[in-house]
């Protein structure tokens, strides 16, 4: 099975709503990654703000950053090789990499833990 890693730019949230503009791309990717993870596929996402270590440890990503700066993010790796720079994979690309149907990748994320801090 293929292994896909997405290295996100610095953002305060993965849905992008808190930024100065809203990017539906981010919502799409969040949902697709969630669906794939749930099906047990090897896909992971690293946000520069939360997980900067991943951007150091991965030599390929680090090199892209040194060469091209932060504008090169997001960087997408398939089996450890850089396949995309400065853009997210399309739903079709993801489906192809994991040999599944694009329609399988639109599952809505569910929140698993429910805790009311007031109770």
């Amino acid at each position: 099975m293929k292994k896909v890693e997405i290295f996100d730019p610095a953002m305060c949230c993965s849905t992008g709503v808190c930024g100065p503009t809203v990017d539906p791309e981010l919502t799409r990717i969040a949902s697709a990654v969630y669906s794939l993870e749930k099906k047990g596929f090897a896909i992971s996402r690293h946000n520069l703000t939360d997980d900067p270590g991943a951007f150091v440890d991965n030599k390929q990503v680090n090199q892209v950053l040194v060469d091209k700066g932060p504008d090169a993010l997001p960087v997408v790796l398939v089996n450890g090789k850089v396949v995309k720079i400065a853009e997210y994979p399309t739903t079709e690309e993801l489906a192809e990499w994991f040999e599944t149907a694009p329609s399988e990748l639109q599952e809505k994320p569910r929140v698993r833990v429910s805790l009311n801090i007031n109770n």
Partner: protein
Amino acid sequence: MYSLFNPNQMAVTPFLFFTGKGGVGKTSTACATAVALADQGKKVLLVSTDPASNLQDVLEVELTNDPKPIPSVANLSACNIDPEQAAKAYKESVVGPYRGKLPDAVLATMEEQLSGACTVEIAAFDEFSHLLADEEILAQYDHVLFDTAPTGHTLRLLQLPTAWSGFLEDSTHGASCLGPLAGLEGKKALYKKAVDSLSDGDKTTLILVARPDNSSLLEADRASFELKEIGIKNQLLIVNGLLQSHQPEDRVSTAFYKRQRAAIEQTPEALKQVMTYSLPYVSYSLTGVENLRHLFSSYAITSFETEEEGEPLDLPGLNSVIDDFSEHNTRVIFTMGKGGVGKTSVASAIAVGLSEKGHQVHLTTTDPAAHLAYTFEGSGIRDNLSISSINPDIEVARYKETVIEQAGSGMTEEELAYLKEDLESPCTEEIALFQAFAKVVEKSENEIVVIDTAPTGHTLLLLDSTEAYHKEMSRSTGDVPDSVKKLLPRLRNPKETGVVIVTLAEATPVLEAARLEEDLKRAGIEPKWWVINQSLYATNTADAVLRGRAISEKKWICKVDAELAEKCAIIPWLEEEKIGYDQLKEFIL
């Protein structure tokens, strides 16, 4: 009128939170209350979050974030938590380890994401939740006083289940405004306890502090409603700085008195239901323990004069600001400052002044349209001055709708609730307004545009990096509007854009304005003028109380003029609150 606030004559809960916008006197009120309780023999801890460490001047002691006894007041300890420092420390803990390992430009994008107002707010909450939940602290002190309170936005975020499950379970759906709390899941129980203490009326009183003016009372009303909704119901209101009497023969004193009384009559209905006390307007600045003790004995004037009148200051009026912009043909003018300093009046006066000089001017304000229409009604307004208004409520609502439409599809109900709360953050309003006035600027290519609000440096930097980012991202559909893209470079060009910082000659407003300026400089914008508004010093009042205040303004005027401003102008306190076109005209000539 209201009875005087006096902690010696009321039952006091263990926790007291003082809340209100900058400059209403939270710190001095909290301080005076702490001293009064300590004088009764109670063990008191005063917690300040004042980034300027005003409290250190007030108590005349160096403070740290560890409680420390105050030598001049038996039974009183104090500590100072600087939320900006806490936020900075948090930011450094995230970014620091990667210096040298990641390119500087990459680190800069991380830092900016962690530089928002929310980061500071949450960092502050994180700091004082320890004090609220710590049993040992409660055992040690009878009262713990905080000179600030968490906002409704912070507390609501903490109550949303997604806020916690987000961190705990699923990093890909992490939080935004709660950034600084990420990875601190061990604190869940602590925060829960802190929130419980806050909403327990036997433990906590929320003290809303307001000035007797319309905008301050409206603000208190909003805070009261918001915090009541979240369960903090034990509230009281202090109207701070109420002039007790006036000299009928002194025009300034009479107008000052009448304006305050009129504002109080217009107190919002809901706020009228809150138990209300007042504190007198005093001539002395509330520094030093003796002055604090004076406050509850309601002496308006100290027996000892601490400040000398000294040499008179000579600063230009607003007409110099207008001449400067007129000569240099500045195209876009922003007036900025915290609420209540009179940004709209200053923007209006600049617009009127420029139109009198023959320029085509467009004035756009975020004040409700009705107000401006009223202000200029029936006056000899020139046809080279046009006015429009941006209603923040409508703009924010529209922006939220767009966001939810674009990003909300495919989300679960819980996620949608979280998204909606994210949109309640102060950044949202800023961005919505910025987009709205970028549109106005775009439409008025042949006019000078005067705007009574300005974006913060943080918003500008975020917009800027987003734009650069989107240039690279061909596929992206979440785009910065064209009008915003065009405005960004113009803002940085001092030949085209002038930023005027409006402040009052008092400690907190000056320090807050200095922070605004720092933030703008970060984004490459140098404010050109500082305008000190509503200065009693610049009037000729003979009223003893007001004169005392006027003298205490001097120190702040000097600080602005000598240390902060490139150019500084001053506007005297005006007798009319809503000045019409003709008064504006008279005033700027």
